[in-house]
Each structure stands twice: as C-alpha cells, then as structure tokens.
C-alpha cells in the first residue's frame, strides 16, 4: 500500500574487504530522491526467517543505488548470497537524513566507526560541490574492516584510519585520530555514525570543544515507517523514532546511557 515499496534488480554484489560488501541495485527513482543519511529497508528473506526487514544506509546514489554492508547475522548473510539479476524487495528512501552544515562552516569532519562509514560517501558526494575541507576519521576493528576507500580519496577527502590492533593506521579507537584535526568551534561541523558508545564519545568531545554536528543513530527496527513506534531512542525532546524522526539527529540531542 506504500508508494515506496518496490522490487529492484541487483546489478552487482561484491566483497570489498574481509568484512565489508557492496550491493548495487537498479532504482533510478530512489537514486534521484534520496538524501544523504536516509536508508532503505530490505526484505532479506523470501520466507519468515528472519522476519523483519533490515535497514541499510544508502552508500551512494548515482546511476545505481549502492549499500555497504557487513554480514553479521542471518539477514545480512542472506544479502551476501544475492547475485546479479536477483530481485530485491526494498522500502525507501526512508527517514530524515543529515542536515546540511551551517553557513559559516569551512571544515567538515566525518567520524565513522566500522560499517558506520556507509552514509558518509553519499554525504561527500553532496558536500564536495561546496568548498569545504573534507576529513574522514575512520575507525575499524581490524585490517579486515578497512577497504581502500578510493571513492573518498578521489573526492578530495583527507582520510585518517585507526584500527583497534594497529594493523592499519593508528592503533586504537577512532578517538585516537582526533588530534590529527584542527577543530574550530566556529567553522568545523561534525557528522558521525557508528556504534552508540562511539557516538557518545564524539558527542562528549564535540560538547567539550563546542562544535556542532549531526549523528546517524541505530536501533532495531520493525516497520521502518514510523508506524510501530518500536525504534524509539531517548532525546532531549523525549522519545523519537530512529526510522522516521531520524536516523540523523543533532549530535547534542541524543541521550546515551
């Protein structure tokens, strides 16, 4: 009954590194409408296991729509076996994407943990049209969570990498990269996406240095449409749904425990 439910054809599904895959599908209308930070809700199973759709940020929308994903459970593993020509049941584009940086912004710092890097490329594609200094701080767990990130570099983004074990880039969490950047409270704007503890860390750092930003949050979802009120998170304005009011929120707005 929804305008946004469609079946699309898979164009390709390839492994980019040990842990990350990229799925490309043909959805011209979706590609045109999507805003950075919005997501698609994909039915991974034909039957009832797993029951729920799975949400994925849109990684890129050019001729085709791309998602970047990490097989970690039943739903994402079913995605990994999709092949060229298979059909894909997709709801989207869904949710409220990233706000654009305020007028005075000169430097945009994207801080991503693991698969949280996914919404940053479509964001880069929009932001590179303006004259921002673009920086990506990326924290992966291991070498297997790091892929070439050529698309970022080709777009003029300065990429800094950390891994927990130091196998690539600096050793430690993404926060070890903060001193690579000269943050400026007036002219820096942050975008962040990753596990909640990471976002919480970025939030504390940004608050201390008085820097504004946006965070893309996660919660388990059923409908993805704002109907079930199942994906609520706590914000300074009360409960808000990640799927409809978010996934992108003002960085200081989200409350973590």
């Amino acid at each position, binding site marked *: *009954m929804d305008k946004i439910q469609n079946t699309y054809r898979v164009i390709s599904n390839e492994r980019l590194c040990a842990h990350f895959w990229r799925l490309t599908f043909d959805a011209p209308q979706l590609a045109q409408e999507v805003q950075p930070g919005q997501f698609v809700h994909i039915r991974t199973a034909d039957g009832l296991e797993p029951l*729920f*759709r799975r949400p994925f940020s849109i990684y890129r929308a050019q001729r085709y729509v791309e998602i970047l994903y990490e097989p970690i459970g039943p739903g994402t593993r079913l995605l990994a076996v999709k092949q060229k020509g298979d059909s894909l049941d997709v709801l989207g584009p869904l949710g409220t994407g990233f706000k654009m940086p305020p007028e005075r912004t000169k430097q945009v710092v994207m801080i991503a943990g693991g698969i949280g890097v996914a919404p940053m490329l479509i964001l880069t594609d929009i932001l590179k049209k303006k004259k921002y200094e673009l920086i990506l701080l990326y924290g992966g767990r291991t070498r297997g969570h790091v892929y070439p990130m050529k698309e970022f570099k080709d777009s003029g983004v300065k990429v800094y990498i950390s891994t927990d074990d130091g196998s690539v880039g600096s050793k430690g969490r993404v926060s070890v990269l903060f001193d690579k950047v000269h943050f400026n409270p007036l002219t820096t704007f942050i975008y962040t996406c990753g596990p909640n503890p990471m976002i919480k860390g970025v939030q504390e750092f940004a608050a201390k240095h008085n820097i504004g930003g946006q965070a893309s949050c996660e919660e388990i*979802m059923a409908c993805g*449409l704002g109907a079930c009120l*199942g994906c609520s998170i706590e914000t300074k304005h009360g*409960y808000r749904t990640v799927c*409809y009011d978010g996934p992108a929120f003002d960085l200081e707005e989200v409350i973590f425990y």
Partner: protein
Amino acid sequence: MNLSVKIANVTFQNPVTVASGTFGHAEKYYNLKEVRKLGAIVPKTVTFYPQVGNPPVRIWETPSGMINAIGIENPGIDGFIQAKLPNFKKIGVPLIISILGHNPQEFVGIVEKLNNVILSEAKDLKESLDSSAYRPQNDRMGGIAAIELNLSCPNLQHKTLVAQDTQATQEIVKQIKTISKFPVIAKLSPNVTDIGEIALAAEAGGADAISLINTFTAMSIDIKTRQSRIGNFTGGLSGPAIRPIALAMVHQVYKSVKIPVIGMGGIANADDALEFMIAGATMVAVGTMNFVNPRAPLDVLEGITSYMKENKIADIKEIIGSLKE
C-alpha cells in the same frame, strides 16, 4: 460478488482491516488509492492522557514473530482528535477507534469525547446514526464507525487485566454501551484460561463484536548480561508464530457467542485470512505482517476475491464459519 460485512448497524465494504498499533504511518508514504480499498482502519490505541511509551528496547525479533513493549505511546484522546483524526478521516475508510482506560472513568471520558466529535459535526445526528450503511462520503459520521475497547488494561481491584476477568469485562462493556454513540467491539487478550468465557461476558455486557487476539506475554533474555532484552522487562508476542493458537481461539469464541468476531494473529496472506474466516471470523486484521510487507492487507483482499471467484462463491458470508466438523 458481495464482500461486504456488517457489525451492528455498520456495513464495511470488505472484511479486511489492520490491527491496532500496526498501521498509522505517515501520509507521505502511503498510496491513498490502495489504502482506500481496505474494509476499515484501526489506529493505535488511544488513552485519556498522553503517554510517552516505554523505554527502549521496545521490540525484539523472535522466530516467525516479534515481542513488543511499546507502552501505548499516544497523544491522548484530545491530541488524537485534533492532530490525528483529521488525517485518518481523509483516507475515507471507516475508522475503528481503539481506546484504553486505566480505570472505568477514563474509558467513559474517552468515549464522551468521541461522542462529541459526531455531536459537533452532525446537524442531524439521529439520521446518520440510524442509517444502516456506513457512508464514507458522509462526513457527519466523523469517519468513526465503531469503538474497540482494548481490554488489556489494569483491573484495579484484582491486579489482573480486565480481559482476564469475566465480571470486569462485562461491567466495562456495559458501562461503555450505555453511553457510546458507536457500536462497541471488545478486544480480548489470549492470556487467559478460557477465552470463550470472557467473550460470553463481553457479549452479556452488550458488545456488538469481539476482536481477538491481542499479544501473548513473552520474554527474551540476553545471556551475556542476564538481563531482559526488553526495556519494559516483558512484552507481547505477535506474528505468524502465534497464528495457530489465534485461529483456535477465534474458533472457540465463534462457537461461544452470537455476535461477529474480528480475527487476527499472524495473518500474512489470503490463505491465512481465509482460515480465520472459515473458523468464524467476520472480519480479519493484519498486524505484525504490515511491518514486513506493507502490501499484506491488499494481498489478503485480492486473494480472498480470487478464492471466491475460483470457488464460485457469490457472498463472503458463505465462507464465514463454514468449517466442517
């Protein structure tokens, strides 16, 4: 081919509806032309005062089902009438308003406010309420076709749910029936020993129909932290996992009462819905499966239509309760 069904004096164009709490998303997403094909729409339960809902995590996926503990997040009856009802009315499908009071006074308060919706809109209330057929084009009805009492609410003296107590069920239904300008549907909880008895009590209280089932009390535990995965500790199980039990309960209630039954519990497609209708349901509602396949209610409707064609059934009433024993 006649697909229309009746509850009290209200005629619905077909028997397919949605379960409370599973439909109600933004207008910008849905295709109005398709939503208009539904027999009725049931919005999320409304309480007297606004409720913010339960702390996260509110939902958990289970084998062929889900646990939810949303906590009836809703804007309260005033907020609903002002902000939500006008949009639901625009759809142009009869509305069944699900309500819950934490005590009888709250139930009465909500119903009085809903009565006022038509009182304020109807120039000639008597006429529109007496007319046998619901007319969506007739705005004077306020779009409200019936009230559904969510009886999974506290039964204050007994520390149970109203829906777990025959006497409390009968009393609250009776109280609402004396004041409601709308037909009254009693929605039952499956967390009982004998659901037939509860249905009989609702009928004795004057209910115009019974809807069932609501969710089964359920849990899921994170073995790493040894804590419940649900913010509210327990939640309610729904989805295809509960369907066979729901079907048995619908049949049991159909055999116990004379009033129409609205059946739900894990319905995913027309075959599932037909099972419920053959077991005795006059209407069928799609709940959890809306989240998986937003087209499910329409698939159900289309599938029922083709089943009737294939089996040369002229009137849907030939299916209802046609189970052979």
